[in-house]
């Protein structure tokens, strides 16, 4: 091993300290929680003997774990009340399922309630996850949306501290949650990204990302790189005491002033992206120099590379519905791939294909870096414009997107952080009183849907075979779970959250209406009338309903399908305070 490699792994420690250290990475989830909390203060909630395991794994022939691989522990850190949510990386690669996800979101919500009642209660999330558990697909995806929302609910009241120690790291939608944390602590062994290297290689080819190149992976996603580009706040060695000290510092620092969170800094994201040209992509090393180690706008942004050729964008459902619903008025292109149309009472937003997108991995309508930024800007602008209005205008997210952008440049720039900026903006609008309605007219897949749609108060979908809502497209999900597409189709018949059928999606408890239309590709005047009326109803329901996402657990469908999530909520409530 070279000296450089040694220095990187030591992260400021001498070798004597390294030898004496207690590794944090080698601990399991409970061991990690114990290492962070004051001795004897730890109390595990919804633990293994409560047997809240996933109801979806055993029917698929997968052995469940008694606590679904997530430890929720209450206790104190130097006297501060703290809840630790520790993801067990060994179980299903730390994948977020219905139960494990609900444990984290409900713990965040309860910490929020305690904080509002006068006892600020910090939450520490130990991210070790490959993302949404594909065996629980749509319920995992929704769980991540609820976690993101709950992080944002708690963050103004008490710090939410994220720790990514490794070795799994943080990938998938949970990295959006990591991007929302008050502070993020990483080790040199950590990795943070939206799409993992293997998935990018699978989707974009080995020339896009060689997933066997470990040096490249850590250069792009590694803890040191994230810290050097100010996408993480502290870089500490793999030492339980040092990590505990960093967590304590983060908790003692308290909440961050509103507007200063990384996920609120639309300006920084804009200036960083303005100087990133995928046609002349910098190396990860160069990126450190370009962006600097502080999260501030770059003073002299280089003008984005101009595009000479403008190919005719293909007609898509997203484009057609946006145009139809807003009365045929030409929608405004915030950027060519993000359309906005503002009517008197609502702003409509859609991500559409742009064949000339300078980010070539986002040309088919994927949600990439600049799409996340444009959506966030538009949502934030509307919040600002309506800040004194008595009735806030609605935001209608027209959803027809193949996925998020799977690309190496996207990961290097921190797609998870860009998506966190959008998620934060939608949440800010929702909690400010803007009704958010997601209208799914085509495909709504994975991180793309998390960013543009899943923070809505109300979710509507066309009842049409072309509508597909899922955590990953079928071929990729089959490859990753080592199944054939036929096997996936068979399983989807009995495992509701795995189904690609929109009628099954409607059974999960967070689809507020399925709309029957005559022509989903080219809406007829009658279709427009039907859908507009449904949107009006949804806006009305949103205005009188809760500002958080609790209706997703209280709906009629949730009572049947999401009984495990409801059991988590009830059990955490019952065990939250120790028995007298």
């Amino acid at each position: 091993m070279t000296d450089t490699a040694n220095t990187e792994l030591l992260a400021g420690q001498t070798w004597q300290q390294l030898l004496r250290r207690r590794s944090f990475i080698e601990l399991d989830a409970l061991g990690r929680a114990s290492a962070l909390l004051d001795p004897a203060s730890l109390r595990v909630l919804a633990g293994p003997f409560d047997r809240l395991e996933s109801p979806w794994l055993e029917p698929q022939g997968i052995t469940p774990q008694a606590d679904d691989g997530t430890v929720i522990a209450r206790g104190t850190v130097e006297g501060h009340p703290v809840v630790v949510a520790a993801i067990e990386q060994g179980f299903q690669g730390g994948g977020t399922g219905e139960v494990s996800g609900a444990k984290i979101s409900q713990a965040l919500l309860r910490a929020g309630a305690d904080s509002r009642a006068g006892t600020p209660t910090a939450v520490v999330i130990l991210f070790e996850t490959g993302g949404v558990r594909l065996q629980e697909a749509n319920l995992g995806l929704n769980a991540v949306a609820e976690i993101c929302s709950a992080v944002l609910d708690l963050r103004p009241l008490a710090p939410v501290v994220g720790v990514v120690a490794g070795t799994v790291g943080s990938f998938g939608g949970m990295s959006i949650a990591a991007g929302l944390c008050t502070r993020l602590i990483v080790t040199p062994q950590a990795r943070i990204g939206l799409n993992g290297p293997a998935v990018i290689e699978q989707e974009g080819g080995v020339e896009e990302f060689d997933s066997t190149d470990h040096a490249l992976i850590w250069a792009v996603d590694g803890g040191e790189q994230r810290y050097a580009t100010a996408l993480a706040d502290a870089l500490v060695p793999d030492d339980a005491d040092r990590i505990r000290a960093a967590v304590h510092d983060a908790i003692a620092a308290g909440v961050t002033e509103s507007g200063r969170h990384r996920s609120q800094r639309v300006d920084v994201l804009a200036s960083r992206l303005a100087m990133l040209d995928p046609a002349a992509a910098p190396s990860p090393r160069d990126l450190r120099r370009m962006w600097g180690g502080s999260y501030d706008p770059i003073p002299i942004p280089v003008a984005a590379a101009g595009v000479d050729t403008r190919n005719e964008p293909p007609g898509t459902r997203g484009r057609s519905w946006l145009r139809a619903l807003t009365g045929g008025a030409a929608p405004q292109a915030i950027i060519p791939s993000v359309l906005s149309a503002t009517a008197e009472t609502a702003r409509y937003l859609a991500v559409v294909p742009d064949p000339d997108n300078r980010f070539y991995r986002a040309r088919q309508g994927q949600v990439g870096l600049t799409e996340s930024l444009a959506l966030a800007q538009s949502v934030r602008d509307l919040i600002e414009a309506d800040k004194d209005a008595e009735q806030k205008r609605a935001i209608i997210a027209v959803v027809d997107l193949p996925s998020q952008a799977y690309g190496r440049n996207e990961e290097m720039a921190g797609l998870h952080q860009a998506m966190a900026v959008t998620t934060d903006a939608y949440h800010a609008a929702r909690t400010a009183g803007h009704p958010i309605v997601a209208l799914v007219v085509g495909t709504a897949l994975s991180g793309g849907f998390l960013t543009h749609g899943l923070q809505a108060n109300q979710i509507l979908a066309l009842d049409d075979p072309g509508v597909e809502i899922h955590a990953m497209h079928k071929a990729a999900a089959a490859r990753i779970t080592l199944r054939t597409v036929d096997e996936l189709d068979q399983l989807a018949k009995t495992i509701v959250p795995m189904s690609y059928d929109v009628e099954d999606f409607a059974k999960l408890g967070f689809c507020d209406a399925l709309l029957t239309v005559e022509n989903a590709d080219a809406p007829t005047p009658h279709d427009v009338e039907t859908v507009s009326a449904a949107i009006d109803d949804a806006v009305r329901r949103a205005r009188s309903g809760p500002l958080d996402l609790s209706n997703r657990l209280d709906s009629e469908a949730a009572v049947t399908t999401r009984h495990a999530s409801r059991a988590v909520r009830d059990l955490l409530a019952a065990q939250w305070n120790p028995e007298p």
Partner: protein
Amino acid sequence: MQTLNYDFPARQVAARAVHIGVVASGDLEILLEPPAAGDHVDNAAVRVRTSVDGFDTVWHEVLERFFRRTSLAGRWELNDFGATPGVVTLRLRQAAEAATENETLP
């Protein structure tokens, strides 16, 4: 996935509930609880859920050998993700040790 149930005679009773291990690749978790009211106090009731089918005999052999030496009554639940017999025995011993700490095993 296969669910297997076994009973073994036991002389000593687990003093406390213990949880050991993780359902990780090549590993398993064990939940051991003292016999509940109405359970036989001289019986180790074992339920194994394993991701690998067809190893009923091996499981029986491994468990039989363990309970012959460590005769600990209670409800044993093993959630297995392809652990080898050596790892299974190690986890069983760990669970027994934690459940009888400060006591001597028969």
